[in-house]
């Protein structure tokens, strides 16, 4: 009886280990992305596929660079942590190149110029730009460059969120006074709520998106840059900007 008990146990443990082992081996390049940041990456409602500016760009680069990719949809915090551990080979996720991030992983050449912008309620007349945020409650997604900018501002009440959508929801509800986020993303939210939200002031940072690459994989970095250069030369960035950023969702 004792023997039967233990043999069932062993079978269960073995199946658990087999389950853990399989489904993981592949020779494709693993690309992480947080598909909750339209129009750069998001999940298509009908097909459940990950789509967006970044996805199209990455597919084109892979073709030029001569490698295959598979996408892994991971939340932002986990993505940053995973890249630092080289759990993924690449990450493309509207990620701004910063000195700090360069310490954890390598970046490709920049592929897009963006910047942070302030969004407020349409009826707001107090806030006209980043300089009039003193004493206000300002939200951003935790760990993004928008968040970092807020922390640099004096006398501003920073409100971090796990998800940028929640920040905008709070703004709509009047719980916070403003949101700082990437320009293209902010425009998307304003576009969805034209009578309720507006952007104010200039785009106030110079930021460039880059593709994150596992630090030790210099081979892959070279391939990515080669592919990126080729598609830039062919005018792909302009084409994608037209497709994804000008015509709205």
């Amino acid at each position: 009886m004792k023997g039967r008990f233990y043999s069932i146990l062993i079978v269960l443990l073995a199946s658990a280990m087999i389950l853990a082992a399989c489904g993981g081996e592949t020779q494709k390049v693993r690309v992480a992305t947080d598909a909750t940041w339209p129009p750069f990456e998001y999940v298509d409602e009908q097909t459940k596929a990950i789509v967006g500016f970044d996805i199209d760009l990455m597919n084109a680069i892979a073709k030029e660079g001569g490698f295959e990719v598979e996408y892994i949809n991971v939340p932002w915090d986990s993505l940053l942590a995973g890249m630092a551990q080289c759990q993924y080979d690449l990450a493309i996720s509207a990620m701004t190149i910063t000195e700090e991030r360069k310490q954890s992983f390598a970046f490709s050449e920049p592929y897009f110029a963006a910047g942070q912008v302030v969004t407020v309620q349409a009826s707001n007349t107090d806030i006209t730009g980043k300089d009039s945020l003193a004493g206000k409650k300002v939200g951003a997604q935790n760990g993004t460059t928008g968040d970092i900018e807020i922390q640099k501002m004096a006398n501003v009440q920073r409100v971090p969120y796990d998800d940028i959508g929640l920040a905008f929801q709070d703004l709509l509800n009047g719980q916070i006074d403003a949101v700082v986020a990437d320009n293209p993303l902010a425009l998307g939210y304003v576009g969805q709520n034209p009578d309720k939200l507006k952007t104010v002031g200039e785009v106030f940072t110079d930021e460039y998106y880059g593709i994150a690459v596992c630090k030790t994989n210099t081979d892959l970095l070279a391939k990515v840059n080669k592919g990126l250069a080729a598609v830039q030369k062919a005018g792909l960035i302009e084409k994608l900007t037209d497709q994804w950023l000008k015509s709205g969702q």
Partner: protein
Amino acid sequence: MDKQPSGSEQIKELVKIPGVEPSARLDPWWWLVVLVIASVALLVLLIPDPYRRIYTFVLDGVYVTIGVTIVAFLFILIVGMIGGLGRLSKNKLIYGFFTLYVEIIRGIPILVQLIWWYYAFPVVIQGIGRALNIQALIGYQANAVAMAILGLVVCYGAYMSEIYRAGIQSIPKGQMEAARSLGMTYFQAMRYVILPQAIRIILPPVGNEFIALLKDSSLVSAVAVADLTRRGREFMAATFQPLPTWIMVALLYLIMTLFSARIVGWIEKKTKFER
């Protein structure tokens, strides 16, 4: 040899003792489940934009949530039993190991544990592979769902061990003594006498753990598993509609937890016996 009516035949003729009759009336709380399901149906039918869109989009996440929870829970029940028995063991090594397990796991938040399993554990495996020069281990990549389930099992297993232990300890010592004095081994006594009684006693807290697990399963969204919560996030991001999305997601979780609570209640009633 003339056979008298055998004992078993005579038994069949015995008048059945009227036992404790379980209430034939339906538990009224089932109506709450019906109410929530009706709310979801109304939203989907009457306000299809956005509710029907949300519903169709997150539906596969619902299946993932249910699947992850059920599979994890089955293993948790097993780990809990082993852990509970281990914590009651007279063998110092076994007792020490399981006590250490429970103390450590209960001291670390579950989200941190899940992240560890998905991100740190493969690094450990790869390190072992490099040290022992086993190719298969060096290239080890974690399967997200498997790691998520593993993390949930290890974490909840610790709490479940304590539940089992308390249940077993609440069985009067005399039960074990009677079983042993009849010549049963420790394991036979456990299997036929102690555990059947203990399991009925711990059904309420075990049921609670299942419902808690259903909700905590939302944490697997942090480790690349497309469960209900993650699907909610993705939809919300793609369509800029946080409020309706989260209303629908909350209602769906509510249906699952309320339904589970009713099932647990029903099981409790069916297996009740007076002590």
